[in-house]
């Protein structure tokens, strides 16, 4: 009975909403409440199922949507890689620190979450804008003579995403690294491996599960990011989260918006399945 609760949870809060969105995506837009065509219409006394796949066709043909999908995947992938390159050394350092310091360091990583996410992203605007802190410092130092365009660029989006999602990479990595047996590194050194070699051949392979977990936690939400690209990103290239929101609120085209959402889900299924396959292989190896 208790085992049924998670299933019930997923049913009510995931499956049913998913089916609702899917159903809307198979309609056409119309000026009415609700603003989409019904599934069933009555024709001569018997129900007729009306499925419109036109929304999906529209998405595949219009270059705006295709480029938005690809751009979202690219930004999420690059951000995940940056989070990994920055987060791994940090997680490693915390795992190697004295036990007393570890809790303090972890708290420092998590502390920014205590403030509003939106405010933190806004803070980056203050830092990156033409008249912002970074430009003013560089101008004052004489390193540059004209302000750098940092805001409303891909670069700003990467900074925003990496900054916001870094703890999601660090914490799973730390959880994995903390469990590593120090004796293994001593054994490796005893057998002739210098510290870097020992890291590459002993620590890194054993931390793959942590890398996968952290990457998943960064990549999936990053694909659908809305706030960061809206505040910090380019106006000429939208990420899919913004596209979806515009479609829903600006164009009031619920079917197309729903189709966008379903396609994002399908797109993400592939990396999720791939990650899970890698994770299973890791577990089997133990």
């Amino acid at each position, binding site marked *: 009975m208790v085992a049924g609760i998670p299933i019930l949870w997923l049913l009510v809060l995931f499956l049913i909403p998913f089916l609702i969105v899917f159903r809307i995506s198979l309609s056409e837009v119309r000026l009415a409440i609700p603003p989409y065509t019904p599934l069933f219409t009555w024709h001569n006394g018997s129900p007729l199922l009306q499925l419109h796949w036109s929304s999906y066709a529209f998405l595949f043909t219009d270059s705006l949507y295709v480029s938005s999908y690809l751009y979202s995947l690219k930004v999420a992938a690059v951000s995940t890689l940056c989070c990994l390159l920055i987060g791994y050394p940090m997680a490693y350092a915390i795992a190697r620190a004295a036990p007393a310091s570890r809790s303090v360091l972890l708290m420092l990583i998590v502390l920014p979450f205590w403030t509003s996410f939106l405010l933190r992203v806004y803070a980056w605007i203050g830092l990156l804008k033409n008249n912002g802190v970074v430009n003013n410092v560089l101008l004052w130092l004489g390193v540059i003579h004209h302000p750098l365009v940092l805001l409303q660029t891909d670069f700003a989006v990467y900074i925003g995403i990496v900054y916001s999602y870094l703890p999601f990479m660090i914490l799973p990595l730390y959880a994995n690294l903390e469990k590593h*047996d120090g*004796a*293994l590194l*001593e*054994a*490796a*050194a*005893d*057998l*002739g*491996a*210098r510290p870097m*070699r020992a890291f590459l*051949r*002993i620590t890194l*392979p*054993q931390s793959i599960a942590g890398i996968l977990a952290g990457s998943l936690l960064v990549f999936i939400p990053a694909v659908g990011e809305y706030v960061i690209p809206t505040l910090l990103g380019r106006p000429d290239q939208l990420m899919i989260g913004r596209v979806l929101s515009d479609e829903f609120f600006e164009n009031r085209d619920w079917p197309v918006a729903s189709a966008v959402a379903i396609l994002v889900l399908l797109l993400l299924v592939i990396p999720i399945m791939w990650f899970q396959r890698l994770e299973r292989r890791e577990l089997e*190896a*133990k």
Partner: protein
Amino acid sequence: MNNQSQVDTPPVPVAADPNAAYVRIANVTKRFGDFAAVDDVSLDIRRGEIFCLLGGSGSGKTTLLRMLAGFESPTSGTIHIDGEDMSAVPPYERPVNMMFQSYALFPHMSVEKNVAFGLEQEGVARGEIKRQVAEILDIVKMGSFGARKPHQLSGGQRQRVALARALVKRPKLLLLDEPLAALDKKLREHTQFELISIQQRLGVTFIVVTHDQEEAMTLGTRLGVMNHGRIAQVGSPSDIYESPANRFVADFIGSVNMFEGQVCEGSGDCLRIASAELGCTVRAERARASAAGATVWTAIRPEKINISRRPPATAPAAAPENLVRGTVREIAYMGDMSIYLVQIDSGKMLRVTLPNMTRGRDRPLTREESVWLSWHGTSPVVLTE
């Protein structure tokens, strides 16, 4: 003919001293803050021997082992291995390999890759690595387990792989940290002898750290007993057991009966000691000379004491020596021998062991029986510290 006087005498080669120290530990101290884990230890270990460092927890034996491996640096003192000073040498450059107590096998690598790891660090050719790995796995009798992962092996099998991994590079020195601690009794006995035979076959010098006396006595060609960071005694197993140098060693190894007493007279190599605790005079032969009146301790091993219902015929009627009366309080039947706890007049309990020589012995000793305990003059060991 004239050349005869001008012929140079050929140089006489200096014979290598077979007992020259292969590993020389000189005045090594290791401090952690104020605490000296290893306190001014000096030790020479000979080539090709199995040297056992024996001690309880906190005795410093593991710290000393880790300093040999290079995981800790001595606070003061030097360590030389085969003539080379190891002070600035990191563990990955030492001709030393270690078998860890937890085995520390790499969980994500197969048995073969685990054993090959050390050779790969040296840049040995792939084909040669395969050959050497197969050879060492055969020696430890794990030849058919090459593709398995550590989690698919039993404890004893993991231990062999750990041993193979540490031996494949034929190091000058192999360090073993409590090698038999994780094995059950039967396997332990079997593995003890296997270790000795592998060591003799390969000729590698072993240094074993253990808290188990039996293990040390069986494995070691020489033992070093450690106490609170210092060496209490170094010697062969029989030296340590039969001639302990101090009370700690006498008490640590096996069981012992210890009494305080004063030296009455010492003539030649024979000491007479009066012990109120024991209630008789002890005549100790083969004892070091001591000044009369000096306080000494006498140690007698349980198996060296005879129990009889009547005093031995040779005992002089007056002023008996090496003879005392007591009452049997406890008997522990161990199968091959029996342990008797006998209380003497002073109230002290003596521990005596007797082998059960006769099957179905008639009239065995019973509790509360009055008995005479005696021992030969060579049995007592006189200790001054």
